[in-house]
């Protein structure tokens, strides 16, 4: 008698179970073969995906590591080559600025050089540098919204040309500008050092309006610099003043 033929074979309880199991298996396979092809394909795909779980399939995508750079090292961000030189803090950087009563300006000095062959506006320049982990930075110029340390990266600086203390409105091709990224900070006591982050950009087309340009500023390099506290600018005394 062939083993595995349906049901009613003598052979004791073990034989019965095996026969039952084999019958069940055959029925299961028959059922499986009866499923439509699309369903089978979908199940196999889902199974394959599930099998990646123990191999890291469910982990978060790794954030790219921030490169550590040195002072005066040129960082290619995409539209602009940036280098950071030094950081200082003062209550009034110069004549064109108003004095801050309960806080101070943080100035990150560095150089910026456009890589474009046409004149660049200052939007990428303002997004190229950020301060990390500093408490009480003003979100933007004259926007009286002071950010906690965890959101310090959202604070957008104003950028000035060091040579003539004027606002950097554009970068022309081929010129290397000495600039200062300037934030206003509320709160007494300048930190002894700050973490300066340089952000890089991606050249792509924006889906919303088909605008093509440097988008998605994201930190790509950082360095820690000591903060030098400088006295605020004071109007020079004129002759004859009492």
């Amino acid at each position: 008698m062939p083993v595995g033929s349906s049901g009613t074979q003598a052979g004791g309880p073990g034989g019965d179970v095996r026969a039952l199991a084999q019958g069940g298996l055959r029925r299961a396979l028959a059922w499986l073969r009866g499923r439509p092809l699309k369903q089978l394909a979908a199940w196999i795909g889902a199974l394959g995906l599930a099998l990646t779980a123990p191999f890291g399939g469910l982990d978060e995508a790794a954030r790219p590591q921030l490169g550590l750079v040195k002072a005066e090292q040129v960082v290619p961000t995409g539209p602009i080559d940036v280098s950071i030189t030094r950081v200082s803090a003062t209550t009034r950087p110069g004549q064109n600025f108003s004095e801050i009563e309960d806080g101070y300006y943080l100035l990150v000095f560095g150089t910026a050089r456009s890589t474009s062959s046409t004149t660049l506006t200052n939007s990428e320049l303002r997004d190229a540098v950020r301060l990390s982990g500093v408490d009480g930075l003003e979100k933007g110029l004259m926007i009286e919204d002071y950010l906690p340390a965890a959101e310090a990266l959202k604070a957008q600086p104003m950028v000035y040309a060091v040579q003539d203390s004027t606002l950097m409105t554009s970068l022309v091709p081929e010129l290397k500008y000495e600039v200062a990224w300037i934030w206003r900070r509320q709160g007494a006591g300048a930190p002894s050092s700050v973490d300066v982050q340089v952000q890089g950009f991606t050249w792509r087309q924006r889906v919303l309006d088909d605008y093509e340009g440097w988008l998605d500023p994201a930190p790509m390099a950082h360095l820690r610099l000591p903060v030098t506290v400088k006295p605020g600018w004071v109007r020079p005394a004129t002759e004859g003043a009492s």
Partner: protein
Amino acid sequence: MRGRVGEWFAGRGRSLGAGALVLAALAVGRVVTDRLPDAEAVIEAPVERHAAIGEAAHLRVGEVTVREVTGSTEWAGVIEGKRTTGVWLAADIDLLPSRRESGISYAAVRDAGGHVWDLGRGTSTCKGTIAGVPMRCQVVIELPARAIPGAELVLRWTDFDERFDDQAVVPLRLDEATMKGWAASTTPIQVPNATLGAP
């Protein structure tokens, strides 16, 4: 299993074939569209009116004449002044507006290599015109301190939209000697407010 699969394809052969042909047609269409030149860019390109220094360019907004071109490392205006590590090019302009909306708010130096240096950190005083009243004004542009072969000065009413409009194109001689001379100068270029009125 192979029979099942074969069966599935057999019944749908026609529609699958049609689908494949549609995809192929779309792909070919995309390749062709990408390769052909952009008609809009040609139609909308600004019309260029060439004029030499001292000659009038007849623009839609008026007659533009570049009288003189000078340079230095600093300019001083009424409200502000700026310095550069390159040079500032200052062009003295005579503008005779033909309509109420007129002026020069776009000025740029371009070369044959695709570089464009526009107003940016510079300035234009050619604003606040009165139609029919001649105006004497200036534009100041920041340039690197090197010879720029094939340089041209481009002047236009507005930098907002260049389509379907015209612009003045004036060839400049920015050779090594000129640029070196300007880069060595520290005398600020005076940029007063524009003057209106018959000379």
